[in-house]
């Protein structure tokens, strides 16, 4: 297989008359962590959701591990089993306990046996440090625990790529660290990750590449140290100034 894990070319997406993505090219190498940052409304979540076709692109090509997802004949359900996704709002299945959350897709989609599915589930729960919560219901867990379960659920499908859509944005500040810790550990194990995030510290320390988006375009991309540490574009500089030092700026200009 190629060294390139995700290749996006000329991606365009609009909702009605609103153009959200206006031509995006992204390449993610196998084993890399790519963080996408940018102001709200810049299209970064839409970009991520296009990678597993939760949003259908209007134009452009998306290739994940050699499979062109934008091909009309591709089995998208099969392709998605190899692309894990973690959502801002966790989206654990509310009617199933933690273990069942991790086994249901393994059994129904991958057709694994119950015993095998449970073993894999427990191993992944252990990876996120929540093995003892296997029989809890999602509502009994804290936000941070729910998000870690959601990560373990995605991992149980043995994905080649993991997509994270603002995984810590819905969490109380003191719970953010647990989730970022799990993500960092995943990155260290060599998982290919595409992360939409506002956690600049995380992006700086973990990302191999940072992409700054604004207004449906990629404004700037490169190694974390450069994009976050020494941004070249004015819009990147303004955005980072606001995010990194929020108290020393007036209200932003209307767009």
């Amino acid at each position, binding site marked *: 297989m190629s060294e390139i894990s995700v290749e996006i070319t000329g991606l365009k997406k609009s909702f009605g008359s609103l153009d959200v993505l206006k031509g995006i090219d992204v390449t993610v190498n196998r084993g890399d962590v790519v963080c996408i940052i940018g102001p709200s409304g810049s299209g970064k979540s839409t970009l991520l959701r296009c990678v597993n076709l939760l949003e259908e692109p209007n134009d452009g090509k998306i290739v994940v591990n050699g499979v062109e997802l934008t091909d009309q004949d591709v089995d998208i359900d099969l392709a998605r089993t190899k692309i*894990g996704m973690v959502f801002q*709002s966790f*989206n*654990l*299945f509310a009617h199933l306990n933690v273990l069942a959350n991790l086994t*249901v*897709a393994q059994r129904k989609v991958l057709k694994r046996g119950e015993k095998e599915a449970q073993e894999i589930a427990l191993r992944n729960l252990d990876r996120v440090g929540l093995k003892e919560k296997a029989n809890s219901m*999602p509502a009994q867990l804290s936000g941070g625990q*729910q998000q870690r379960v959601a990560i373990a659920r995605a991992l149980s499908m043995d994905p080649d790529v993991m997509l994270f859509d603002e995984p810590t944005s819905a969490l109380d500040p003191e719970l953010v660290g647990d989730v970022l810790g799990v993500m960092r550990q995943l990155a260290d194990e060599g998982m290919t990750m595409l992360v939409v995030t506002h956690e600049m510290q995380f992006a700086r320390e973990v990302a191999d590449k940072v992409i700054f988006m604004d207004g449906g375009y990629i404004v700037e991309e490169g190694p974390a140290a450069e994009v976050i540490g020494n941004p070249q574009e004015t819009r990147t500089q303004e955005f980072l100034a606001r995010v990194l030092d929020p108290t020393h700026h007036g209200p932003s200009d209307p767009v």
Partner: protein
Amino acid sequence: MALSKRKRAEYFRYSQYTLLVVIALVIAFLADWEQIRTAFFNFKTMGDMFPNVITIALKNTLIYTALGFAFGLALGLVLALMKLSSIAPYRWIATVYIEFFRGIPALLVFIGLAFGVPLAFQIQFDIYSTVMLALGIVGAAYMAETIRAGIQAVPKGQVEAARSLGMSQGRAMITIVIPQAFRIILPPLTNELILLTKDSSLIYIIGLARDQYELTKFGRETLSRSPSLTPILVVGLCYLIITLPLGYLSRYLERRSGGKKVSVL
């Protein structure tokens, strides 16, 4: 007389209580209690009704209702999915069905099934099929809208999570959405079950054998041989034996799901 607003409200309340007491006393004095007792509480008639009122009538009411509810639930689910379908004709068919059968008396459906369909299609339904189809057809019209609302009440993120794990649309619907939708709509479905329990009495229209009597038919039959309204009182109480616990259950489920939302997390 300058009464404060609060005082006036207080006197008004007293006057209402007084009025109620006066009405109760007038009724108590004017009523012929002996007459009423013989009209409603003929203990001999009451005794004669047992045990058949339970072993035949109550049992049959339960069976008829259960059959109708089961069929109605299945058909209602199909209709709800049709209403949510991306295929427009499915939506139209479901809408027409629901509007039609919600808008006509259930009795007409019973008559149609018992007398119209056999004439038109040369099929003769037995009593269980008739009651199951008739109650189910009517119940489905009501339950379809409830089920549709329940399905739509399941957060969109649940489907997205399921799809992102590789489940197909249908698989996500069956394993993730519908189980959660039914939790949400359990209280209104219980109410529908109460309505169907009462509507099961309409089966009388097709003419029943003795061992097929349900509560209302049983009550009317006994009434024709009895000098009092006692049979009606007895079968009325039997209905309450079924419906009161269901009503309580419905309110309990409503309280429980109201406290903790099934959604979001």
